[in-house]
């Protein structure tokens, strides 16, 4: 297992280099211009100067190598410095990956966005899992029962109705009509006491539920399918033939086996948390990583988009590995060598 992990990590390096090049090249070749969104009153000469000041004058390979250096050397060094409060070398003049729109280090923007994304999107993932697993288990155990039929219908709806629609409906009902919940997420809100905690809960309810419904819909179907798979396995019959209680059969034997693929699916889905939820973040103005990405794309803030996409790629690679390792831990038959 250890060897396997090490080997996969080593293999990830060239993979990520290739990905980084592709991301950089594709975004670089895309016909967008950081000055494209500026008011037309800014004359072309000024635009040209702006482009030069953003470093667009240099040839592609140089920019790529610079970005590589900034991303793989400068940013980690900077992070170490910040964590440990030390100074390594010429940290004043070390160039970091700069956003074109904000003229600030991209990584700082991402770090700033992390909390709300993790809170809202991460919480929705957790809530989604907590809803999905029992629903999946019961649906499978009582296949074709009323519960199963209703569950199937609800998850079909949850899965096929886009989040912007559910989000809008919730806002109209709970913010506009009833006025119970805020429609706009306050990212500056700090939890200090019970009432501010309550406010935080209130402002999280709608975005979290919208996403949780979506996640739970997918996951509960998956859980159900996995349970059904295992319910028809021979060992379940063996467990029953041993005289085990139905609850033990279901919750010990079947659930444990059914969770193996589900847990890996959950692990594979975690990078999506970091990708943020673009649409839901927009609707509720959670302004997390998803919204950052979309602003970057709209504003042709290429370094921001490159970095975000690449971090996302890194996470996907890592969580793929993690999912495999988790699989190996949960299923004793799998031993990676």
């Amino acid at each position, binding site marked *: 297992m250890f060897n396997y992990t090490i080997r996969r990590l080593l293999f990830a390096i060239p993979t990520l280099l290739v990905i980084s090049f592709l991301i950089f090249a594709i975004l670089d070749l895309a016909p967008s211009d950081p000055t*494209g969104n500026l008011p037309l009153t800014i004359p072309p000469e000024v635009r*040209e100067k702006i482009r030069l000041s953003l470093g667009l004058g240099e040839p592609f390979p140089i920019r790529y190598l610079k970005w590589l250096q900034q991303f793989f050397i400068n940013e980690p060094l900077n992070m170490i410095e910040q964590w440990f409060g030390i100074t390594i070398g010429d940290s004043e003049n070390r160039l970091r990956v700069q956003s074109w*729109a*904000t*003229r600030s280090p991209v990584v700082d923007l991402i770090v700033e966005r992390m909390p709300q994304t993790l809170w809202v999107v991460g919480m929705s993932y957790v809530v989604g899992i907590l809803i999905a697993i029992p629903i999946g288990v019961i649906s499978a155990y009582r296949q074709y029962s009323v519960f199963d039929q209703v569950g199937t219908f609800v998850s079909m709806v949850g899965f096929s109705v886009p989040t912007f629609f559910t989000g809008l409906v919730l806002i109209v009902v709970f913010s*506009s009509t009833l006025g119970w919940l805020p429609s706009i997420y*306050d990212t500056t809100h700090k939890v200090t006491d019970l009432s501010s905690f309550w406010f935080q809960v209130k402002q999280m309810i709608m975005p979290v539920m919208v996403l949780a419904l979506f996640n739970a819909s997918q996951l509960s179907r998956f859980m159900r399918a996995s349970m059904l798979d295992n319910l028809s396995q021979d060992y379940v019959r063996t467990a029953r033939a041993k005289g085990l209680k139905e609850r033990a059969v279901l919750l010990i034997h079947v659930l444990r086996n059914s969770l193996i693929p589900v847990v890996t699916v959950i692990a594979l889905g975690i990078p999506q948390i970091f990708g943020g939820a673009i649409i839901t973040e927009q609707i509720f*103005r959670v*302004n997390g990583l998803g919204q950052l990405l979309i602003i970057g794309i709209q504003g042709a803030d290429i370094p921001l988009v490159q970095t975000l996409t690449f971090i996302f790629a890194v996470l996907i690679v890592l969580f793929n590995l993690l999912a495999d390792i988790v699989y190996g831990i949960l299923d004793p038959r799998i031993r990676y060598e």
Partner: protein
Amino acid sequence: MVKGGICDGTCVLNAGGFAGAGNSFSQEHNMKKALLCSAVAAGCFAGSALAERGSDGQLNIIYWQAASILNPYLSGGTKDIEASSLVIEPLARYDETGMMVPVLVDEIPTVDNGGVSEDLKSITWTLSEGVKWSDGSALTAADVAFTAAYCLDPEGGCQQASNFTDVESVEAVDDLTVKVSFSVAKPFPYGPFVGSQVPVIQKAQFENCMGAKAPECTEANFGPIGTGPFVVSEFKANDVVTYEANSNYRDEAKPAFGSVVFKGGGDAASAARSVLETGEFDYAWNLQVEPEILSKMASAGKGTVVSAFGTSVERLMVNKTNPDPALGDKRATVEGGAHPFLTDLSVVNALSKAIDRQILVDVGYGDAGQPTCNVLPAPAIYASTANDECLAQDIAAANKLLDDAGWVRGGDGVREKDGVRLSILYQTSTNSVRQATQALVKQWWAEIGVETELRNIDASVFFGGDQSSPDTFQKFFADIEMYTNNFDGTDPENYMANWSCGEIPSPANQWLGDNMPRYCNADYDALVAKMAVTAKLEERAELAKQMNDMLMQEGAMIPLIHRGGVSAHANTLAGVRMNEWDSELWNAADWKRAE
């Protein structure tokens, strides 16, 4: 407590009225001004008698485009400029009528008061006494001079550099006096330091951020020290800015709000909802929402929709050169030859006559649009009335024009003459209102026997300057293209100069140039040159109108809509004076809670 601040006597000056001598003003004009002044003064008194700084709590503003940076010199984005306008201020700015008002000076320099030199080559500003930066230090002429140096640094990529065009030097004569010298005579010397896009920044803060280092000063760019009513307390780029009242603001009674939240993100419709329906926010900016939806939201009674008109005009640019792909490198250039039919005035006039501008307004703009037949619709003194005939749609007249010019309908209903078909490629950026407009126009043109192919291009490509892309509006590889343009401030000189022969984009100038129609007329260029040396307002207005009319009559463009800004404020917010000539938040210091 009773302290006047900017209300104490000095009065606003008409945006046009300073350059020429006072004698150019009409009696009526002066009357109006006087009335306005007293009204403002009265308002100030009433306000300051009741209010205390920070007593009205928090002001919640929502801009659906979030602020990325608070330094207008590094960002031309309206959202960024407006977010920064609460903190940093110019020497003078425009009010909602387009008139210039002093901010950090006591009076606007003119030739009359000796602030502008007779040869129109320099302007001298005298700062008000006692203005302090929010950190408590005094504002000096050195800060103003530094601001110019900061923007003029060639490596800084200053996005407001055009406001400093022809500036030769900016020097601090003494602590309170700053002199801006131009290399040429400037009949309108109010480019630098007037309007919220050219505010004064603090030398002490930005000293080490010159040129190439400008983007690295994140802390300064995110939290500039200013003289305005508020100071930045927290800035989350592309998300939210929170401000607190500036304790060193020059008017002790202001601002009424103790803090401001400037939230960004989302879309215009939900921003409108948060003010008009849920009441979570006090002010929402730029509500480009379908008129119908907006009026429905407003009926909830929580807020008010306000609009104001500046100089923005949605227009059709008419390509006078031939965009035929067969021309290769010469495509859409003067060398490539004239357009096969858009140089025929009867065609352009017919196209214009066939459009019902009021319907376009109703469908796509509502309160935010008015039909117009001019590319220069405002300020009022510049607005021509010579072309108003186009306001009424007249398909019959349009058909007749084409019939008379010898364009006959072919078998498929498309007119042609000498083998040239009236077939138009009509492009614009991707945007639902624009596509709706395109569809309507196509239908009307079909009625006069003109075939139209529609095309829309992503805005970042269309307006982006990527020279390798064939889809930019500068390259104009189409017959007609549609977009909105305007100019900052109130003086149209530079704007009208856009359509001189030298401004035609071509491969030779990397397609940089503002003359999209590739219109070229020596008479027009002569008018441009004349305006550059004319100081008197009436004469300037006359010249501008002439240029506008010439462009219209020669079919360089077909104006459609005079576009305004639409915003909304909660009914509990008082003091909003919607302004298209400057930041919408220009008078945020005066905003307060309504009783």
